[in-house]
């Protein structure tokens, strides 16, 4: 099945979401090429094992329509019948645009897929991972948006050999580009994640979680509720609309465990939950559950580590 993997650049190299999809494509022996969209000047994306095209977009103009035009052209000229993309902001925009050009509805939130009798069959996790939902795609080109961390990333040597295509600017200028400062362990690759929810009661109490994170060299996450409340930046949100994490240890502090949160953390290897409400759904997922007030348990952990 002729496949196009839509890649993305993070920190000047191929994103881990892209490397995860490449690994899966190899395991299914798909015939694929990678087309990566980014604005970096000279990212490291190439490989001796696959063909890489870099569509360089400008960082000064919103030009996703022009990028999508180019991608549509490649897909149609090369008779691509499967497009695989990580479920990120940029790829969601691009795949949605492509779906209109190709008249093929995409499947979002894919956590696994397979080829059966020349058709693509996708698996989605629904209700926070409580159930899985399988779909068969019947259009001539299948479009998949794949949740991060669904597969292990491939470990390959990347180089700077690839073809580059530039696209025209649009009339919409981008300004005030802001890059969030990355300090300390990052959510996506930290071995330990400590997340906070409404049970922390107020923003000031997050210092307790920060103290524990410092002691354990852990990354800090939060639920949508506290991100919406402005206690943490969006980049720290764990869950359906935020990040997916899979650390060795996940400590949920004052998190009830709504399905939207579970989908972002349920595959963590060991889950510790601290919550006042004995009936909170988070305890279903927890390997170790402490029924108690987070605000009194965490300070004691901090003092005694």
């Amino acid at each position, binding site marked *: 099945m002729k496949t196009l993997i839509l890649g993305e650049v993070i920190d000047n190299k191929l994103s881990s979401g892209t490397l995860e999809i490449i690994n899966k494509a190899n395991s299914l022996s798909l015939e694929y090429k990678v087309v990566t969209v980014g604005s970096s000047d000279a990212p490291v994306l190439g490989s001796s094992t696959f063909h890489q095209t870099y569509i360089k977009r400008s960082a000064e103009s919103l030009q*996703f*329509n022009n990028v999508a035009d180019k991608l549509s052209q490649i897909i149609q000229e090369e008779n691509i019948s499967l497009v695989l993309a990580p479920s990120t902001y940029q790829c*969601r*925009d691009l*795949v*949605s645009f492509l779906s209109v050009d190709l008249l093929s509805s995409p499947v979002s939130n894919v956590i696994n897929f397979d080829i059966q009798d020349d058709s693509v069959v996708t698996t989605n996790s629904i209700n926070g991972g409580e159930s899985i*939902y*399988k779909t068969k795609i019947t259009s001539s080109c299948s479009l998949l948006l794949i949740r991060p961390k669904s597969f292990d990333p491939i470990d390959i040597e990347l180089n700077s050999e690839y073809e580059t295509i530039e696209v025209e600017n649009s009339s919409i200028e981008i300004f005030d580009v802001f890059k969030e400062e990355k300090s300390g362990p990052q959510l996506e690759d930290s071995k330990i994640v400590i997340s906070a929810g409404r049970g922390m009661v107020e923003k000031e109490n997050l210092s307790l979680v920060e103290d524990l994170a410092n002691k354990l060299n852990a990354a800090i996450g939060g639920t949508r509720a506290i991100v919406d409340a402005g206690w943490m930046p*969006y980049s720290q949100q764990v869950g359906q*609309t935020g990040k997916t994490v899979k650390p060795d240890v996940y400590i949920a502090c004052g998190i009830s465990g709504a399905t939207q949160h579970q989908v972002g953390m349920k595959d963590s290897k060991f889950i510790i939950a601290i919550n006042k409400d004995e009936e909170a759904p988070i305890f279903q997922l927890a390997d170790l559950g402490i029924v108690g007030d987070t605000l009194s348990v965490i300070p004691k952990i901090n003092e005694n580590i």
Partner: protein
Amino acid sequence: MNITVCAKQIPDPANEITYDNGLISRPEEQVLDDTDRYGIEIALQLKEKYEGEVTVISMGPAGTQKGLQQALQMGADKTLYVDDDSLKGSNSLMTASILSELAKTTDADIVIFGTESTDGYTGTVPQQVARFLKLDCISYIKAIEISENVTLTRQTLEGSEKVIMPEKCVLSVTAGGVEPRYPNFKDIMAAKQKPIEKVELSSLNMNASQNLEFLNIEKLENSKNGEKIIDEGEAYQVVIEKLKELKVI
């Protein structure tokens, strides 16, 4: 300025979502998706600055129309909706096709969406509508600043960036980007007088078809039956012991 906001009626999120043959079961009474409140709020702020009309468009079983009423209570002027049995189980592209046709009937300058619904989470419809309408799509807006121009802040993978809103475009707004207003008693009463108009599917051009075939849903056994301890003041020791065992400390 004609401002069109897309709104979806969804089953009350307080209840667990159930499925029937692969489709979300929809009770007669559905509510406005909270995600859409952010889009409606932005529409109302644009109307306050530029005047014009705010039209809510919606597709799906109308039922008691509670969710559509809730959109009007916030301050939208009128609602157009499509409700047709043949649309049951529509994929995102079919939905986007119908919504873009509805948006055309409103002669919209600006079409506003939440980024993804709280029941389906496909998160592709705003961009698909933009492509159908051949408009620019400013997605993942997390802040709006209305002065001489309208400045939109977009969420990106690494942070954020700003653009000036063009005269015609599609916007998708993230939750938390603005503070949606709460209707008071007067707003609730006034909403009852506002028009809610059903548009017949036959009057619209559907430019997409079904390409996703439901195979099955399988319930997973998620409960880990982990250890559960009631804290009587000493549970912290169990946590510390466990962290040592896991070689975290």
